[in-house]
Every structure is written in structure tokens, then in C-alpha cells.
């Protein structure tokens, strides 16, 4: 599985929020929580990202309730999980080199 580009911050947190099934607004809330209120995903940004991730097969519809009032939930797929892990490795490398060279942020 070759990934071409680093993930955007938004996509990274969306994938993290979907390690357990979650619905759209839940992703926004969870991202806010994880980042201590720093990153508030715009609804349009999230909508586009969910569609893109569905296209890529990185996330999937978790279950569609017969009861249409219930919100749709999405969940990360194995492909998405692999992409997330690959991104974490990349981020770790960034951080490792940053710390090593500047000597800041603890080794």
C-alpha cells in the first residue's frame, strides 16, 4: 500500500475519531476534545473528507439503522488503519529528527 502524501491534520484526527464507530458531529466533538479545543473541523471540511475517505475505502459505513432518524455511523477500515499507522511512523520520524537536531522537546 503506497501512500502518496502526508495526511492533513483534519484527516488524521478524523481517522483517530473513527477507531470506534462515530457519526459526523461526534467526529467534530472528539477532535475538539483531543486537541483541547484547538482544532474545530468545519462541517464542510468534514463532509468532504468523509466522502473522500469513503471513496478510498479508509472508512466505511458502520451500520445503517432502519430507523432513519438515527444518524449514520462510520468506522475506520483495515486500509484506513494501515494508513493511520504509516502516518504515525512518519510523524514520529519528524519529531525524532526535530528533537535530535535542535536538542529541544526531550529525547
Amino acid at each position: 500500500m503506497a501512500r502518496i502524501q502526508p495526511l492533513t491534520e483534519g484527516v488524521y484526527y478524523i481517522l483517530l475519531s473513527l477507531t470506534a464507530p462515530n457519526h459526523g458531529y461526534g467526529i467534530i466533538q472528539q477532535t475538539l476534545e483531543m486537541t483541547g479545543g484547538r482544532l474545530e473541523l468545519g462541517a464542510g471540511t468534514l463532509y468532504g473528507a468523509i466522502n473522500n475517505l469513503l471513496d478510498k475505502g479508509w472508512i466505511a459505513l458502520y451500520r445503517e439503522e432502519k430507523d432513519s432518524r438515527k444518524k449514520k455511523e462510520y468506522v475506520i477500515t483495515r486500509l484506513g488503519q494501515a494508513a493511520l499507522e504509516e502516518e504515525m511512523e512518519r510523524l514520529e520520524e519528524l519529531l525524532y529528527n526535530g528533537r535530535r537536531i535542535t536538542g529541544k522537546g526531550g529525547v
Partner: protein
Amino acid sequence: MVKLRWYYDKDKEEAWLNEMCREGWAMKSFCLGFYQFEPCGPGEYIYQIDLFTENKNRMTHQEYLELIQETGAEYVCRWFWYRIFRRRSELGEFELYTDNDSKIEQYERFCRFFRRIGILELCILGYDTFYWLIFGRWIGDIGTVFFPAYGLLVLVAAVIWRVYFKMKHKIRDLKQEF
């Protein structure tokens, strides 16, 4: 209050709606260039405009609207593919697209839309011009009536393509930011 305006550039349109709102007029509906406003507190809302195109088999229009509404925004109105939302400014900054990648995607959606109607305009123009060259009169000739119509077509086509290239420019600028 009703105002008649023609906007092709959604950024300018958004800026105008927000300016009207700062002056105490909240836009509540749109039809054929007529914007209807009702009084509101100065700067009570922040407006955002989007272009919705259904992505088959993906999140539906309903989900799209619900997601935006869940963030505390209100669905003001629609006009064909255009969607207008607003949120109370006391809830903080309101932006549908919060990162460059998704802003670029939004502009690209507008660009595709403008390219389509721009090409359609050029086809109609071409046909009209061709007809005039061959037959020496305007289509459906009722004397002078059709020359102004032709002029209007030229004008609209020019505006559409201008906005198209402006958006392309904005995409380029966003791509250069990092």
C-alpha cells in the same frame, strides 16, 4: 427589505451578506437576484455560502445539511446548487471549510460549475454569431430586440470566465501557502 444584486463571486457575495448583517440586516431568502432581508442585531450572524453537488453513494444532501446544522448553524436557503447558511456570531467564528485542502476543493467545485455554464454560454454565443453571419439577422429576428440580448450574453460569458480565472488564481495561492 429587498435588494437586487447579481453576484458571481461567492467570496464577494459572502462579504456583502456579512456587511449587510453588520448593518442590522439579516438575509433570509433569495430568488433570481432578489435578496430579502429582515432586521437583526448588528453582526448577529455570520453567513457562509456553499455549492453542493451530490456525491453518489456517499453522504447524502440530508446528512450534509444535518451535519452543518448540528454545529449550530441555520440553513437559510438554497438556489439550485447554492446553499446559504448562517450561524450566530456569539458562537464564534463560522467557517464551513477550515483547512486549505478543503478550501481548494470548494473552489474547484465552483470552478467546475462555472466552467460548465461558461462553456454553455460560449456555445449559445457561437450559435447566435454563426446564425448572424450566415443569415445576416439575429435568431428569432424581431428587429432590435435581439441585439441587446446578444450583448447581455457576451457580458455574462465574460463575467463567468473572469470569476472562473479568479478562483483558479485563489486555488493557486492556497496551494502555495504552507
